[in-house]
């Protein structure tokens, strides 16, 4: 009976895929080719409106494989991270598929199942090699990416389309007002916009937690600096680090940044851009549909632009910004149904599901999905849709930089960001603040056994 069913499913899959091949335009599901009747796959994953849309496709998987999928936790990124940590530490894992993220995966290493045995080369071929690389620790692939994000320069388009402002800028600086491509240009233009009253604030950024650490990190590497050297000794308190920290401090002092920057997280920061109070900012593509929605952001919907991240300060090794990361799925080592879990992950990261999710504005991690999106965008009336995808693709291919893949990333960030805040607020001098953070970081890394 079961054999018959399997044969039938395979035949069905063949027919469907055959039909699809004939049409050559239908994106494909994957992971449906195994009979999983009677198995319940439990999943702990990220929740929230946009993230949850994907889970709507799960009935297709249940129908085809006979498995039952139960979502046991739907939490936001930081909450699910804390849940995973507690569960891993106490052995309370009762799920087969877990949310994961390239910035977090290094913490979970001892508790994750290596995925190499469950995926063929062919199945992995479509995924971005840079992301798979970032997810391979000690030769073990620990996650399968779902979608990616990278920070891009967002700007208020009205400031750059207005001939009067352009004229005033030329008069003031002797330069043309074009969308900035370097940190120095951002500095010059942001100051100009604020000093002449064209924009309330020149630059916007989230000013606490990992959000702040990450923004510093990308300015730092874009200016040729680094958080750590190859021995994981902190190097962010060198001249470049001081240069970046001083820039942020002066921006804050001069009113380029909103006065409550250090209390803002993603939502508060994005709200300022949404309200049209901020001229320039580095921001995730993930906000695109929100900013383009005239109901939530009437001031900037249809009135903002996107560009590749700027090049940092002019030091050796300077490059484009591009703090990046990818949401993903993993299988806990303590999972009950690992093979079934792998099948569900194959399905959730399949071309079809990924393509559907990309419709919401997420950046895909599969080449086949990219190809489809770019083709779709070429038919769109909104020019920014096309620019967005082109820019994003360049960034994902060339500027994709994850934070250091160490389990101590979050503990490091929790040491670092309050010190940077103190520098920004003027409580401490840049060099002294960074030195203090470096000292505490060194102890953290030593405790973790990095210098043995």
């Amino acid at each position, binding site marked *: 009976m079961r054999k018959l069913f399997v044969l039938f499913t395979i035949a069905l899959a063949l027919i469907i895929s055959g039909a699809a091949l004939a049409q050559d335009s239908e994106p494909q599901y994957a992971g449906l080719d195994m009979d999983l009747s009677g198995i319940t796959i439990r999943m702990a994953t*990220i*929740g*929230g*409106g*946009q*993230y*949850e849309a994907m889970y*709507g496709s799960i009935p297709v998987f249940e129908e085809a494989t006979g498995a039952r999928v139960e979502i*046991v*936790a*739907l*939490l*936001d*990124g930081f*909450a699910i991270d804390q849940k995973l940590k*507690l569960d891993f*530490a*106490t*052995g*309370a894992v*009762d799920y087969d598929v877990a949310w994961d993220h390239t910035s977090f995966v290094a913490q979970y290493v001892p508790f994750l199942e290596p995925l190499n045995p469950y995926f063929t080369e062919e199945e992995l071929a479509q995924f971005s090699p840079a992301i798979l690389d970032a997810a391979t620790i000690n030769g073990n692939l620990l996650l399968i990416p779902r979608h990616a994000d990278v920070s891009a320069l967002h700007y208020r388009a009205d400031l750059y389309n207005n001939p009067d402002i352009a004229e005033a800028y030329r008069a003031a600086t002797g330069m043309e007002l074009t969308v900035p491509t370097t940190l120095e240009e951002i500095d010059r233009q942001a100051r100009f916009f604020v000093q002449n009253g064209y924009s309330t604030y020149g630059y916007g950024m989230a000013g606490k937690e990992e959000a702040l650490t990450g923004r510093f990190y990308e300015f730092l590497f874009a200016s040729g600096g680094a958080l750590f050297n190859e021995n994981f000794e902190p190097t962010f308190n060198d001249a470049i680090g001081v240069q970046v920290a001083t820039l942020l401090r002066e921006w804050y002092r001069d009113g380029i940044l909103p006065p409550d920057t250090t209390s803002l997280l*993603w*939502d508060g920061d*994005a*709200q300022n851009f949404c*309200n049209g*109070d901020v001229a320039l900012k580095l921001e*995730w593509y*993930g*906000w695109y549909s*929100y900013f383009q929605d005239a*109901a*939530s952001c*009437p001031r900037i919907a249809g009135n903002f632009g996107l560009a590749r991240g700027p090049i940092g300060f002019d030091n050796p090794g300077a490059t484009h910004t591009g703090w990046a990361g990818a949401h993903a799925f993993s299988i806990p080592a303590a999972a009950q149904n690992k093979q079934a879990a792998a099948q569900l992950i194959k399905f959730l990261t399949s071309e079809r599901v990924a393509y559907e999710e990309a419709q919401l504005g997420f950046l895909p991690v599969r080449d086949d999905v990219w190809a489809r999106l770019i083709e779709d965008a070429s038919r769109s009336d909104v020019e920014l849709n096309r620019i967005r995808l082109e820019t994003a693709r360049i960034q994902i291919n060339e500027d994709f930089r994850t934070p250091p893949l160490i389990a101590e990333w979050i503990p490091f960030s929790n040491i670092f960001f309050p010190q940077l805040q103190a520098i920004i607020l003027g409580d401490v001098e840049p060099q002294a603040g960074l030195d203090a953070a470096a000292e505490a970081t060194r102890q953290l890394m030593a405790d973790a056994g990095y210098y043995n």
Partner: protein
Amino acid sequence: MISGAVAPRKRLNIVLTNTLAWIVLIALALPALWIVLTAFRPASEINASPPIWIPREITFDAFATMFGLNPNVRQRVAVERYLINSLTIALISTTISVAIGTLAGYAFARFKFRYHTTAFLLLMFSRSIPGVALSLPLFLLFVRLGLVNNLLGVSFVYVAINIPFTVWLMDGFFRQIPYDLTEAAYIDGCSHWQAFWRIDLPLALPGLTTAAIFAFLASWNEFQIASVLTRSVDARTFPPGLFVFTEQFTVDWRGMCAMSVIMMVPAIVFVILTQRNLVRGLTFGAVKG
């Protein structure tokens, strides 16, 4: 104080007192009012700059979405489940902690025994251990005992958390009752138990009510332990449920406020039903006098 002929000056005083009380209470309720208004606003008015003080239209969208009545949005919150879980946990833990705590409070107030002071201090001390320090070891313990994701398990913890407060409060109230009354009851042939049940307990009703209200609301609103000990919708209470509205980058303010409004209804009902006993305590006091 209330009865008797009312002189004009006294009448003015009463009017002033009442007015002042209303002003203070309304001021105190303003932030709450804002939360309620947010639940009924159109989404675009929330966090608008410049602000929109009075909603231009009232919408029930947030509630419709929550109860799965909005065809465009998948239902994300098992409100009914949360309601049942929260009520079960709050009622069980309130009943038990008030019952046990009142007995202990009575014992502390009326009887002398060895280690009286030490026991009393230990109780209080147990309340000083913070949730962070409690939650992980408790989780370890409860996993072994099979009490994780279990309504009784959570109730159990809340009982323990609420007891010290109840004991202290009840001890205070029982001490307030003149011992002559209890003694008179003994002379009339009452047992300890009868004296407690007929004389002391009714007179301490304002204290009992206070303790019950606090225990109920503390259990109703507790977040930290609930978020660790409840692992699925089967046992989750409202406060961890509120977190469904926070997303990676944004917060659904309206949804959160709407859920808080729903959360408030049973709490208000409970308070309205029980707070009468504060008055009754007063009348008992008057009878006694």
